[in-house]
């Protein structure tokens, strides 16, 4: 999968490394801004209140 990506990136090795780093940073940034906040309410980690039903 990543091998396929690597072979299809343009330029010499240095350029491909830089492009991979940019792509990875972009994916992580997208996660930080959209994916993780959307997923977080469904994770059972952060209950700080007392309530009669589990939540």
């Amino acid at each position: 999968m990543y091998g396929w990506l690597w072979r299809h990136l343009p330029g010499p090795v240095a350029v491909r490394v830089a492009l991979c780093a940019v792509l990875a940073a972009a994916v992580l940034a997208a996660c930080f801004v959209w994916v993780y906040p959307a997923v977080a309410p469904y994770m059972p980690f952060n209950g700080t209140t007392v309530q009669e039903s589990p939540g």
Partner: protein
Amino acid sequence: MTAQHGRPARGGPGLGYVVLGVVGELLITLGVLLLGFLVWQLWWTDVEGNRAQAQIVSDLPWASPVPTRAPTPGPTATDAGPKIATPRHDDPPVMTEPGHAVTFATLQVPRWTGEPARPISQGVDRETVLNVLGIGHYPGTGMPGAVGNFAVAGHRTTFGKPFNRIAELQVGDPLVVRTEGAWYVYRVTSTQIVDPTQVEVIAPVPGQPGVAPTERMITMTTCHPMFSARQRYIVHGVLDYWAPTSDGTPAELLGGGA
């Protein structure tokens, strides 16, 4: 990157290696994304939460920062320092409960040196209050200074973690609540660890639901242990004194008071 083990027949062993490789890379990718989620939760939400909550407090027209110069005792303000508010033990003013997500008070805890004043807003759900506004007030419980139980909840980790240092509180520590018109200085009376379903800790008389209250209490709830939501860490306190904000600043916030 490709392994040449002889020409693979259509659907032969070469395809198996490819599938294995893709599955392996997907698993590694998933691992990296999960690690990223941890970093987001434990670091980034704090960065955003601290910034947002500091902005909320500075936007409050009635919550100017506490002066940090040496205190001047007495009712007259001089250039030598800020005025210390004289404690009052008569019935304090009690505001009505505001609408959901309205920020109506701040909390500052002298024991937590370096911690800024945190906003207290109405409601305790995560999406609209705890994750974005800081400390939440349990609807239906007492307001600051009321006979009953002023119950609040806050994150211990993530989203600015306003109650991160709750375990440092000792009996007698001041908890300074500020509303638009008055200071309410509470003192810690007890702490306990309970299950999340033990709602009696926020009853008007903590631990005794159905009993009519006679004291002005405060209760703070947060998760326990530190990175888990398995239990709740509870701190109870009782009102020590109140003072109008126009009278000055409580001595506890200026390094004084016992």
